[in-house]
């Protein structure tokens, strides 16, 4: 067929017309519609499946909240608060909800590691354990079993007990736990009420709360329990007075915020005692005038803590001081609490004693809504440890008063008394003050074993890392913290998902090491695995623990009314002061516990970091709070870059001008400046612990620093 121009045009037009009416267009439209709506490969498509809910306990902090984990086809997809749990009653904090970001974090330590030179290399569990056993055997062979030590995040619970037992039967008394306000409360309770080990606060039932800087709704005590208590308090019209130099969230939520010069809290408490004693508005049923310690105490406060004097020291208006004293004394069930911020560190002994003196004057000891003094409830029943002669000898050697003093000593010389260190549930190279010194001390310890899930600041310094399961992968008994909560419970952490990586329970790890050591040590660990051990040592409560997931050990105050000894307070205690020369460091750096930033051994999750204000983190910079007056003096404006210098270090920061902080102070968030491999969390801001020097109290040996003298200048 000859195609001339005419037929060509005709054909062309026909084709156009045909295409226009054919269904091809519609079909293509439809297809491209679907195509643009499903970008295969670019977006993850979550697999659906059977939905299940399992209960467990969160152990990201000491709060021990009950959690319910929603799973789909075996994957954990959401963590929620467990509704019927006695501690958190369905509530949950942001760190707990973000728990799965820890569990599935690809930057977790995936297998045991051994440090060779400057690098970590993968090894098997067997090799790691036998390597550790070899080292320990050598130490024991030198007859120096006391030169091994262990630092743990807590000293309760079966895993800590297993480590303690290991050290004991090996021959070392050097088991330490990281100090917190609980430690100071325990000291206070023992000193003022005789042999008793815990002190807890029934804030839930109090009718007036006087808080000396406690971040009551910022992670203090058992955080979610406190949140719940706070909400209930508002409903019941129970007042909260918050005494602290900065408008924290707690201060903002309180009925009254009383700014105070930092470090003078003890003075205020004693000044209040003065008024209460002077006006005889203390509880006469529990305080006997004839008590000699009370007489001494009365004399001391009358002499040294007159309201006028206290008003001057603390910077609080005299009338207000009187008002607080009356409000406290006249309240039906008042309670005074201390422990700055989250209470993650040990407190000032004098301050705690003075605050507790208020509780004693109010006569609220072992009453509903008051302060409960009681023995530690030990629910664990371990068989008696059998020690050989080397162990007995080693165990009887003197121990350091605290881990801080140990570090202090070790940092001074490379020829240290400590040959090996186990690090469990803690991150001292990050959380301890003057962390550069801590890191130096770690370098002086020849052999360190870390039981960590993450390559944190301390794990990085270890020679061997035995990676542990995350809390959703393991069994463990989780006792509730002592100070914040009166309802003493123990919860059961359960393995809800299969271990993601080649990790183990820390309990199993220590059992493996014990077995590898053979002999006497191995004999003391007869259990085939940690779960068996847990079952046997909790046998009294195991059935209800495994059934319900928690057991309430105490929920009533002891009937016992312990006597009160005020000599502890009159005993010439000194308040902890900010270190540093005021001339070169005219300002004071204080740490801010921000509920959205995890401050302890575990770093924040990506989600938690995401919630942090741009007035705290901006890019990789940390912003510090300055009162406009302080900022103006230093010629700094909001957003300016500045350098903070303290006697122990310096850091580059940015400025956040905030009206709610007392002039003369620099407020810096705790918990930043992490150096993990997790890019979502690490390298943001600075670790405030690098800037603060520890102040070790002579009596307790614990670091009770709350700040440090500092200066700030524009960069």
């Amino acid at each position, binding site marked *: 067929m000859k195609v001339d121009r005419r037929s060509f045009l005709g054909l062309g037009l026909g084709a156009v017309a045909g295409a226009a009416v054919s269904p091809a267009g519609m079909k293509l*439209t439809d297809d*491209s*519609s679907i*195509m*643009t*709506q499903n970008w295969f490969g670019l977006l993850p498509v979550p697999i659906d499946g059977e939905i299940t809910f399992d209960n467990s306990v969160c152990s990201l902090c000491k709060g021990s909240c009950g959690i319910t984990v929603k799973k789909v086809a075996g994957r954990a997809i959401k963590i929620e608060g467990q509704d019927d749990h006695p501690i958190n009653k369905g509530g949950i904090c942001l760190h707990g909800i973000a728990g799965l970001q820890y569990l599935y974090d690809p930057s977790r330590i995936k297998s045991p590691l051994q440090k060779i030179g400057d690098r970590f290399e993968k090894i098997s569990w067997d090799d790691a354990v036998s390597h550790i056993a070899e080292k320990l055997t050598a130490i024991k062979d030198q007859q120096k079993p006391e030169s091994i030590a262990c630092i743990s995040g807590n000293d309760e619970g079966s895993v800590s007990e297993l480590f303690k037992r290991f050290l004991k039967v090996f021959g070392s008394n050097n088991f330490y736990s990281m100090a917190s306000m609980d430690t100071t409360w325990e000291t206070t309770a023992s000193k003022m009420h005789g042999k008793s080990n815990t002190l807890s606060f029934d804030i839930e039932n109090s009718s007036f709360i006087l808080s000396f800087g406690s971040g009551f709704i910022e992670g203090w005590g058992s955080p979610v329990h406190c949140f719940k208590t706070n909400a209930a308090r508002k409903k019941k019209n129970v007042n909260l007075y918050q005494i602290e130099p900065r408008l924290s969230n707690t201060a903002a939520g309180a009925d009254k915020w009383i700014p105070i010069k930092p470090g003078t809290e003890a003075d205020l408490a004693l000044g209040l005692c003065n008024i209460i004693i002077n006006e005889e508005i203390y509880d006469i049923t529990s305080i006997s005038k004839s008590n000699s310690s009370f007489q001494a105490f009365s004399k001391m406060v009358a002499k040294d803590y007159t309201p006028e004097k206290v008003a001057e020291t603390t910077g609080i208006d005299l009338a207000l001081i009187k008002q607080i004293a009356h409000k406290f004394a006249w309240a039906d069930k008042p309670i005074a609490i201390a422990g700055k911020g989250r209470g993650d560190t040990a407190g000032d002994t004098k301050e705690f004693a003075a605050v507790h003196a208020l509780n004693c004057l109010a006569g609220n000891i072992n009453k509903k809504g008051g302060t409960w003094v009681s023995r530690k409830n030990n629910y664990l029943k371990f068989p008696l440890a059998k020690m050989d002669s080397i162990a007995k000898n080693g165990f009887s050697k003197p121990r350091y008063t605290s881990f801080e003093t140990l570090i202090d000593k070790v940092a001074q010389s490379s020829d240290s008394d400590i040959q090996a260190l186990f690090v469990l549930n803690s991150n001292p190279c990050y959380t301890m003050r003057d962390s550069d010194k801590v890191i130096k001390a770690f370098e002086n310890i020849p052999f360190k074993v870390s039981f960590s899930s993450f390559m944190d600041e301390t794990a990085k310094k270890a020679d061997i890392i035995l990676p542990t399961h995350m809390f959703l992968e393991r069994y463990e008994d989780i006792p509730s913290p002592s100070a914040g909560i009166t309802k003493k419970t123990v919860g059961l952490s359960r393995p809800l998902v299969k271990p993601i990586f080649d990790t183990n329970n820390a309990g199993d790890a220590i059992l493996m090491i014990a077995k590898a050591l053979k002999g006497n040590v191995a004999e003391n660990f007869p259990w085939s695995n940690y779960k068996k051990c847990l079952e046997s040592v909790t046998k009294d409560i195991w059935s209800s623990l495994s059934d319900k997931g928690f057991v309430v050990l105490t929920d009533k105050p002891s009937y016992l009314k312990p006597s009160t000894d005020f000599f502890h307070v009159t005993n010439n205690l000194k308040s902890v002061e900010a270190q540093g020369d005021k001339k070169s460091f005219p300002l004071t750096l204080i740490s801010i516990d921000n509920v959205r930033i995890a401050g302890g051994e575990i770093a924040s999750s990506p989600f938690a970091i995401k919630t942090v204000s741009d007035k705290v983190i901006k890019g990789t910079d940390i912003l510090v709070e300055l009162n406009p007056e302080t900022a103006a003096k230093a010629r700094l404006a909001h957003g300016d870059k500045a350098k903070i210098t303290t006697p122990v270090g310096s850091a580059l920061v940015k400025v956040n001008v905030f009206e709610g902080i007392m002039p003369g102070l620099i407020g810096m968030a705790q918990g930043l400046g992490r150096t993990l491999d997790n890019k979502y969390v690490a390298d943001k801001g600075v670790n405030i612990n690098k800037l603060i020097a520890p102040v070790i109290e002579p009596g307790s040996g614990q670091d009770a620093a709350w700040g440090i003298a500092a200066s700030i200048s524009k960069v």
Partner: protein
Amino acid sequence: MDSALIPDGAKRCSFPVFAIGIAAVGAVLLWGVFAMFLIWFKGLNQTNMNDYYGFALWIWADLAVIAIGGGAFFTGLLKYIFGIDELKNIINFAVIIGFICYSSALLILAIDIGQPLRGWFIFWHANVHSMLTEVAFCLSCYFAVLVIEFIPNILENKQLIKIPFLRHVNHNMHGIMAVFAATGAFLSFFHQGSLGGVTGVLYGRPFGVREGLLVWPWTFFLYTFSAAAYGPTFTILVTKAVEKITGKKLVKDNVIRLLAKIAGWMILVYIVAKIIDTIYWANVTAPQLGFTLNDFYGHGFYRIWILYAEIIIGGILPALILIFKRSRENSTLLVLALILAVFGVCLNRWVMVLQVMAVPVMSFDQWAHYFPSWQEIATTILPVAYGIILISLTYRYLPVFPQEQELYPETIAAAKAEAEAKVQEEDAKKA
């Protein structure tokens, strides 16, 4: 080299000079194209837009080019509907400028949306209550009109007009052009208006919101009117620029002055309406919502000067220059007025897009500031380069300006003589 394509009798620069010029502008174009692909492949994170600035430089560019491209519809309306015949001498160019502006606007929109491949959803799943749907509908239809209006001009190319079919198409299109022009004017009216409606209906944004008539906020009418008023000023400005560059007079002064006069009066009427709108908005609309003028103009770049600049410098001043015969006929003042007018309408669009985003609405919210990324700037300059190239090509190869030959009889005579000589030569050869 390309003389076979150049209109008879027109004098154009040599091809190498032309090629170098195009290459220089082409480099800028390529830079823009590179940025465009960067955005398409990597996504809008290449821009400095954010959740506060969802609309930014591009939407401003879009609104601005459409406003200044309004010369096409308004000149067409005047010529085809109102029968002002002199304007036939500039209509071709007005259409080309309109075509450039609208094709640029569509291109920018295709870069601006987060899922460009789903762009057609606006037609397929249209929400008929959205101003943006109206914009899309009218914009694409009107672009079709511009293509139709542009085709006859292309067909007038020396080589194309030789093809009988195309010659007939050209002829027949001219025959019914008034229908297309009328459709175009109708579509333009609505899409210019609906662009104005885009911010006017944002009742959550007290800076942008306006009361209005039925479903249309006052900005709807203000935008239509301002495009009609300011569009021709851009057409004249570009004509002037082309004349300056080519060193030739292309459109007779009476045509220019007529269009300038119309634009002047239009701008005056518009600016009066705009002042009334501003006064009403500042004293009635905004206070009802709890805002004073100070709340809107009082931070960083956005201060009250911007309002004065828009109304006085970009409105009253050019209007006055264009209205009065003496100033209008002074070529320096005329160009100044044209520049101010274009600046004025562009500033208006800027304020109506970017300042709306900058002003905090919640009492505890903050002013938001933004500066475009280089990718945004490059893609915004891209249409400018593209426009220059298209104008160069059309000027070189198409008889865009009918009066060009009239204005230069001597060049025509020379060309004719040359052609005749050629014919004679050929005849001589044949013989």
